[in-house]
């Protein structure tokens, strides 16, 4: 009962924040709304008793990605403080792409058999996540880290001073 009340409140909060993200005219505000959306999703994870996922959500999305986005907005001078229009020349293509994505997601979600019975949450999920990272899913895990390394080296190559 209480959980459902919290869930509904948080879902409304998250959706409101997501709506704010796409409708805000000020880019900085849009980024802040995005942070709110991430925080809402993290709370939903907590409600599902997935603490690790919730905390990772905050660390990765709020701590790293949102900060990076805000930083990028702050560094680009023309964006700061000005109200940017919600539409640009590509709105038609963007709308088409979004509609397609929505249709695909909706079809996918209607096909997925969702568990309606509440399964017991295993006591120590964190150990299971850890052992599957270095066990079953070791190759995707390593590929992801190689990808990050490539991005890191690329960033250094772009930013370094060229001598001579």
């Amino acid at each position, binding site marked *: *009962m*209480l959980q459902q009340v919290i869930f509904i409140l948080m879902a409304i909060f998250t959706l409101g924040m997501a709506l704010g993200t796409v409708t805000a005219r*000020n880019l*900085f*505000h849009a980024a*802040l709304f995005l*942070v709110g959306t991430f925080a809402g999703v993290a709370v939903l994870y907590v409600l599902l008793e997935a*603490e*690790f996922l919730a*905390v*990772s959500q*905050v*660390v990765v999305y*709020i*701590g*790293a990605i*949102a*900060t990076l986005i*805000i*930083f990028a907005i*702050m560094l680009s001078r023309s964006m700061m*403080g000005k109200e940017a229009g919600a539409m640009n020349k590509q709105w038609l293509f963007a709308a088409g792409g979004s509609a397609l994505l929505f249709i695909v997601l909706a079809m996918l979600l209607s096909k997925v058999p969702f568990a309606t019975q509440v399964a017991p949450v295993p006591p*120590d*999920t*964190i150990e299971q996540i850890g052992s599957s990272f270095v066990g079953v899913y070791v190759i995707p895990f390593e590929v992801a880290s190689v990808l990050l390394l490539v991005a890191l080296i690329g960033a250094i190559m772009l930013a370094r001073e060229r001598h001579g």
Partner: protein
Amino acid sequence: MDLSSIDLRAIGAWFHGLLISSGMSQTGIHVIEALVGALLLLIFGLTLVIFLIWLERKLAGRIQDRLGPNRVGPYGLLQTVADALKLLTKEDVTPLDADRVPYNLAPGLAVFHVIMALAVIPFSNRVIGADINVGVLYLMAVGAIGSMAALMAGWASNNKYALIGGFRVVAQLLSYEIPLVLAMIIPVMVSGTMRMNGLAVAQGSIFGFGWFVWTLPLAFLIFFVASLAEGERAPFDLLEAESEIVAGYNIEYSGMKFAWFFLAFFMNSWVLAAIGTTIFFGGWQGPFVDQLPALGVIYFLGKTMILFFVQAWVRATFPRLRIDQMMSFCWKFLVPMALVLFAAVAIILKLNLPQPLEAITLLVANVAILLTGVTLLGRTQRKALYAPKRAFTPTIPRL
């Protein structure tokens, strides 16, 4: 009076009984107990800050051959209360061009993130807000909210200095988060748990020989230096370097909103000291703590205060670094050393040595990496010292 009867659990049990006798539902009792626990932590944190500000000012005064606050109350103890009252009565100025909502939200978020961190800190074996199994990661997540608050304040103030302060927040807090996390992960690897209380329990041994600071001194050093930077303390207080950017991201804040940032700053320092105590100094562990669990709170607060004292001591004695020095110290010294230590500890733990041997190997590895790192740093610094003092060497034109 029988000392062993002092058990904090008894208070909890009494309160639980009181709620049951009032005939509430199970959920209601749970919610009320959680709220009361959260309120207690909040009150504890806010009251503590009043004392911490006085302590730090007094210490800094003594260290710098001044008297420090000594007018209001005995030993100036009520100075902070007077200051808080003054700040409460001050006019609350909002800049005309400020971005109102983020501007007003930022001080709240700054305090919020520190109080959230209090939730997972084990004051004793039983006195802990929430002993979640991702405690260490949770602390990092909460810290991220703190840098978000400073960023919002810097941007929304619509002030050049505040904006530079905001940029520095991202640069400093994000950079130093890396050695901080790496240093915190090392005890987690050794003890095999991310629970804050689990970390404290893992260090239980006679006379504090089980403390991770003995076996992992380098990890503690990295943690401590990074925590100074995360706590925005001198020599790393570049965020509010008065001589460069006036007051950094909180320049436009006045009255109680400024006080909130101030409060968050002091509580953050204390929380970092408390994390250091839990992870490296055995937390609530101490003599006779098994017989008398309430002693754990005293040990914990005592150790944390000692660590806080060292932070204040460093702050009062060291001059501020330059921003480029600070960044290169993090990226070229702390991060590589933390990574090497991380790899070394992982390999040593994989060897599966018997207990005393493993601790000795860890200690040897720590000291060896520290000495190598410091020697290399000294060598490069000396080279830089003797290098020609010109910004560029003129090239002789070829004829």
